């Protein structure tokens, strides 16, 4: 084949130039991609740096301990104690996880193992819809539907049956820790159930089939083969949900009652870290007030960062872990 050999053997000047251009193009393209990837790291650094810079006046003036452990928040008198907000954030997130985790795991099991096949697609679709609803709309619904329901139905019921517990005492307002916790539960449901579902999918089929072949019922196979394998991943999913609950702002701001106090009762109005930032940041005057709010943002950032990192590592460990010991 002489013609073909000729074409390869005699590179014209044009081809060489083209090769050089394409090498240059390759290098430029690679550099551009690395730059875009690096931009993500720059954003992370920027967030950290900016939070540090803005909150500096507060850390300097008040000190970490006073800011985070005193309970008196009165910007007019220059008093900045964030404990009521931290308490509110922790209590509402705890309620949210306590409610949402069992529901989400049930939901994920329904979607992957237990549910009738015909129902799975519509249920999965509704969970996706739930995940797409903006948080201010959840807040609107919480304010005008859930809060009245808590005030007129749930609270009287709980007070009649368990009213001797300080947890359920107090006037019937509706706004408060429980309202915020319940709305958070609804909001983090899609996160936890979809990650749990992903984790369940990574469980080797042979484990479940082995259990079923030994005569286990479907539930027994899930309890003895599937859940133990998936447990770290489900824990990770719960942490992801917790991270969302800690930082969720609008819905909580609208239903928690916005009162900077600490109450034992779940029906009492409280406050949360994101809510106080949302309510006061735009009108904050003075470097210390602004700084204190930014410092709370930094606490929130640190908390969610740790939770998210831990959660991702756990979920990955399950997904990548065929050789992992089944504990």
């Amino acid at each position, binding site marked *: 084949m002489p013609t073909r050999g000729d074409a390869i053997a005699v590179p014209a000047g044009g081809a060489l130039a083209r090769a050089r251009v394409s090498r240059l193009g390759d290098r430029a393209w690679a550099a551009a991609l*690395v730059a875009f990837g690096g931009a993500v790291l720059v954003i992370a650094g920027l967030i950290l740096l900016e939070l540090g810079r803005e909150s500096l006046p507060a850390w300097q003036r008040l000190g970490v301990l006073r800011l985070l452990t005193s309970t008196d928040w009165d910007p007019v008198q220059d008093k900045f104690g964030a404990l009521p907000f931290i308490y509110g954030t922790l209590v509402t997130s705890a309620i949210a996880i306590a409610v949402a985790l069992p529901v989400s795991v049930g*939901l994920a099991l*329904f979607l992957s193992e237990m549910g009738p096949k015909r129902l799975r697609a519509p249920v999965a679709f509704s969970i996706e819809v739930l995940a797409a609803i903006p948080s201010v709309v959840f807040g609107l*619904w919480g304010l005008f539907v859930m809060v009245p329901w808590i005030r007129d139905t749930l609270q009287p019921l709980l007070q009649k049956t368990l009213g001797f517990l300080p947890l359920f005492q107090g006037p019937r307002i509706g706004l408060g820790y429980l309202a915020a916790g319940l709305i958070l539960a609804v909001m983090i449901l899609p996160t936890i159930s979809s990650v749990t579902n992903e984790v369940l999918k990574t469980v080797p089929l042979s484990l479940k089939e082995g259990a079923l072949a030994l005569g286990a019922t479907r539930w027994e196979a899930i309890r003895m083969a599937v859940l133990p394998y998936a447990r770290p991943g489900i824990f990770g999913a719960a942490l992801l949900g917790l991270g969302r609950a800690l*930082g969720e*702002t609008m819905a909580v701001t609208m239903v928690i009652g916005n009162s900077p106090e600490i109450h034992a009762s779940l029906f009492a109005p409280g406050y949360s870290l994101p809510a106080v930032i949302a309510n006061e940041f*735009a009108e904050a005057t003075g470097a210390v007030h602004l700084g204190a709010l930014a410092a709370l943002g930094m606490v929130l950032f640190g908390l969610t960062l740790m939770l998210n990192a831990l959660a991702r590592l756990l979920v990955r460990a399950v997904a990548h872990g065929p050789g992992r010991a089944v504990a």
Partner: protein
Amino acid sequence: MTSLRRRRAVNGFWTAACGLGVLAAVLPLASLLWLVVSRGASGLSWSFFVNLPTPVGEPGGGVGNAIAGTALLVGIASLVALPVGVGAGVFLAEKGDGRLGELVRFTSEVLSGVPSIVVGIVAYGLAVVPMRRFSAIAGGLALALLMVPTLARTTEEFVRLVPGSLREASLALGVPRWKTSVRVVLRTALGGIVTAVLLAVSRAAGETAPLLFTSLNNQYWNLRPDQPTASLTVQIFNYAISPYEDWHQKAWTAALVLLMLVGGLNLLARRLARNRMMEGTR
């Protein structure tokens, strides 16, 4: 045999429990959608889409400026976030197997869990403080910072769906790598990338918290990027927490408009994604 019956009963119990979980998730959703539609629909009219807000009790007010404001904010955010986010996603898919790739992937995963209000504080420091005023630029910057990590991750997923054989065929023909990336891989993944973009835009349009102290609000029309701007979400918030029945009604109607916007974008994204998948299997 009784033991078997007991085991079956336990199995049935837990199956029912899972069903209950489904109910617990679907009921609030149904209630929410029903109320937004039923209470919001009564306030829908042409004037609601085009008029400025009116004081309490004065009829005929709308959220026209807030809709325009949301469009402006999301537009500014997209201008910054789309190239960076999509670029980062392509980086992860094409060159993301090294240590830098792992780091970038992990960082964007972790960043997508950062509360949006925290990002608002950052945008405040970066844009509001130097400009000495609340502005659409500040709000857009906040939304952009939120969009980049999620955009990077979804873009990566879609670009990775492109079969390796396509890339190899192109390289085997002597096409340079960058041209293969742009003309073959990205072109094939275009539908998926558009899906990722639509999802990011719909999420940004629904954000409220980071706008409260960056773009603030505005009672009037504004299309200038350096001025405070109304947005649909902040308007819903303000109407909802007001003590007036008239404004509550407007909050529901505005929520319906927001849900239609977000839902429309999501449905469009899903359609595109489905087409994409089918093409991949063909």
